[in-house]
């Protein structure tokens, strides 16, 4: 049933319906409303038998989830930005131990300078942590992805991160359909752990592995991630069967038929981008949009779609300093050997809005050959401010001995 509700609240209600055993949380903006709501839901008895652990840090939150999951429980936490980095040590530990924890990341910039607003530098920084990473384009999708995340995680025994844009989604009140308990139960059977701390069957979990077997463990982990490319799609199909709603999957396509210039992006900017695509199509431009819902594992199948375009504009809300962007790199690798021109573009850092004007200009510039395809484009840079600062920086720089 559609009702007006804040994104965070809707996610919290959905998580509660996923019947978690333990929610561990440490507050950080813009994740706070999710865990506040979960605290209430648990206290009100509306989250079943769930225990709510108020831990002392994000490192503690992920660690408590590791323990909760290894003890056979369904575990959930949420964080953002610095918090994600503070638990970074525990992320590959959770995936390496094959614990299907689900975590919301309310995407936010990384400091310094400290900035609480939305971009994707937090999630991108953890792309190699062995977690499946899903990105929500809307609050409805954020809600739906949480149910799917538990299903994907527990089918592969791999943890899943659900990314939703901080503030833009977490704090937006809009019409959302929170899946009801029956639907969630239909998609999410009781959790069956791979290995569990049990006095009846004592096992050693987390042994030390040396050079004789470490490579094989990592190979299996890589293979498992690639299996997720099938499972993510299968779960999205089952979700559609149960709810009648299309959400998730590996990618979303918008007006890609005969598109000459394709915009690739992820997160909430996809809504704005679709509007711009409509506008430019009305003006006769052959543009289209490819949204990445599943960022890790990377959906290499986009090659077939993207290879039909002549230009691809990859829009990132994160910079891989010194090397372009993560998403841009992934797309270039995917299109290696094709004549498609790839434009690697950064915009929307630290909460700067990605506007229709900006997207319109980007696509038009790309179509008319005015957009660089060999160096990283900072699309919404205040060039005069940056030039002044750069000049002064170079003045004070000492070069050489």
């Amino acid at each position, binding site marked *: 049933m559609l009702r007006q509700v804040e994104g965070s609240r809707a996610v919290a209600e959905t998580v509660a319906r996923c019947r978690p*055993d*333990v929610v*561990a949380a440490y507050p950080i903006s813009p994740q706070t409303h999710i865990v506040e709501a979960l605290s209430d839901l648990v206290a009100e008895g509306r989250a079943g*038998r*769930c*225990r709510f*652990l*108020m*831990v*002392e*840090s994000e*490192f*503690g*939150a992920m*660690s*408590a*989830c*590791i*323990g*909760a*999951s*290894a*003890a*056979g*429980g369904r*575990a959930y936490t949420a964080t953002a930005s610095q918090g994600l980095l503070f638990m970074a*040590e*525990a992320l590959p*530990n959770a995936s390496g*131990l094959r614990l299907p924890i689900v975590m919301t990341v309310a995407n936010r910039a990384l400091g310094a300078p400290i900035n609480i607003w939305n971009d994707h530098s937090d999630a991108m920084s953890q792309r190699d942590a062995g977690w499946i990473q899903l990105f929500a384009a809307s609050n409805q999708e954020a809600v739906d992805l949480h149910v799917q995340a538990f299903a994907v995680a527990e089918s592969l025994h791999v943890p899943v991160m659900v990314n939703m844009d901080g503030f833009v989604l977490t704090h937006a009140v809009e019409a959302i359909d929170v899946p009801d308990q029956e639907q969630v139960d239909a998609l999410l059977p009781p959790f069956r752990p791979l290995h569990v*701390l*049990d*006095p009846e*069957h*004592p*096992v*050693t*979990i*987390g*042994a*030390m*592995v*040396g050079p*004789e*077997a470490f490579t094989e463990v990592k190979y299996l982990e890589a293979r498992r991630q690639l299996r997720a490319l099938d499972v993510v799609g299968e779960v999205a199909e089952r979700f559609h069967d149960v709810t009648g709603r299309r959400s998730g999957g590996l990618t979303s396509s918008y007006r890609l038929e005969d598109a000459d210039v394709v915009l690739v992006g992820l997160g909430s900017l996809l809504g704005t981008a679709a509007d711009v695509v409509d506008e430019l199509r009305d003006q006769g431009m052959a543009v289209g949009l490819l949204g990445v819902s599943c960022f890790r594992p990377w959906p290499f199948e986009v090659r077939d779609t993207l290879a039909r375009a002549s230009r691809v504009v990859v829009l990132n809300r994160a910079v891989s300093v010194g090397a372009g962007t993560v998403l841009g790199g992934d797309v270039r690798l995917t299109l290696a050997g094709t004549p498609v021109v790839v434009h690697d573009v950064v915009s929307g850092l630290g909460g700067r809005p990605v506007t229709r004007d900006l997207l319109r200009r980007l696509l038009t510039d790309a179509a008319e050959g005015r957009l660089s395809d060999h160096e990283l484009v900072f699309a919404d840079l205040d060039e005069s401010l940056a030039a002044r600062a750069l000049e002064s920086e170079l003045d004070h720089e000492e070069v050489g001995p």
Partner: protein
Amino acid sequence: MTELKLYQVGTFAAGNRLLDPSQRTEQSHAGRANSITSGHRACRGCGEALGARVVLDAAMRASAGRMVTVNATGCLEVFSTPYPESAWRVPWLHSLFGNAAAVASGVAASLQAQGRDDIRVVAQAGDGGTVDIGIGCLSGMFERNDDVLFVCYDNQGYMNTGVQRSGATPAAASTATTRPVGSRVGNAFGTGKSLPVIAMAHELPFVATATVADLHDLERKVVTAMGMHGARYLHVLVPCPLGWGTSSADTVRVARLAVESGFFPVFEAHDGEVTDVGRIRRQVPVADYLRLQARFAHLFGEPGHPDVVARLQRQADRSIAHFGLLEGEPS
């Protein structure tokens, strides 16, 4: 327990054969759990291996085998689980170095949610994983009063990484990062922390210290702790032949001298108040304890540092006075 007068070793410790069978240690029982089996890769004379065996077997008995364990990174983890081998016969989970307490909290919460909270949770770490890198998570577990017994095996340094100083290393000790070079006489005075006292400040239901020199006392404390709920802390002094430069045959002897010199106070506290202390039967000079250890050898050479030894003696004297450790003193 039978009051035994065994003045020759200066302690109340007694061999099992002198005791009534009902008073003998868990280790003397054929039915002990053997929580950590022989064949692991600890050094000869390892105090931590001994401590862990005694603690876990006692905890297994106290919980009727309904127990799971969480282990921090460190010697105990490394020497017990080189893949594909494991020395553990209890459910055992190792995650990271600094998070054993939080992992254990998560295990306890999960078991409660699942209605399996008859299963008890014991977490183990060395002093690095407890007093330094693990203190944040540990303090969280303490203040939330999570239902976990956390055991610190204190060998007073980062022995697994090659004997570097930790926040539990005593003053004047030589470690790989506090070598007595230049004007430095080992680890600096006025540094380090007492985790048992910090734990008491959290007003935990149970805090205690013990050593591997008195296994009856150690087992009794484990059983007491396992009979209680909430956050409980046990700090066990475990000499390290490698890091302390002691003979591997002297592990128990060195631990005993740490107690008998007043250098390591043995006590038990409930709800933040000391309720019992391990009395010193026959006090020995701190120098007797220090001399057996190569990490203090620089204090005794030529010219040596008698002033530093005197300062360490004063430390022990303060500890003896603070806890009322001498027999006949009011506690």
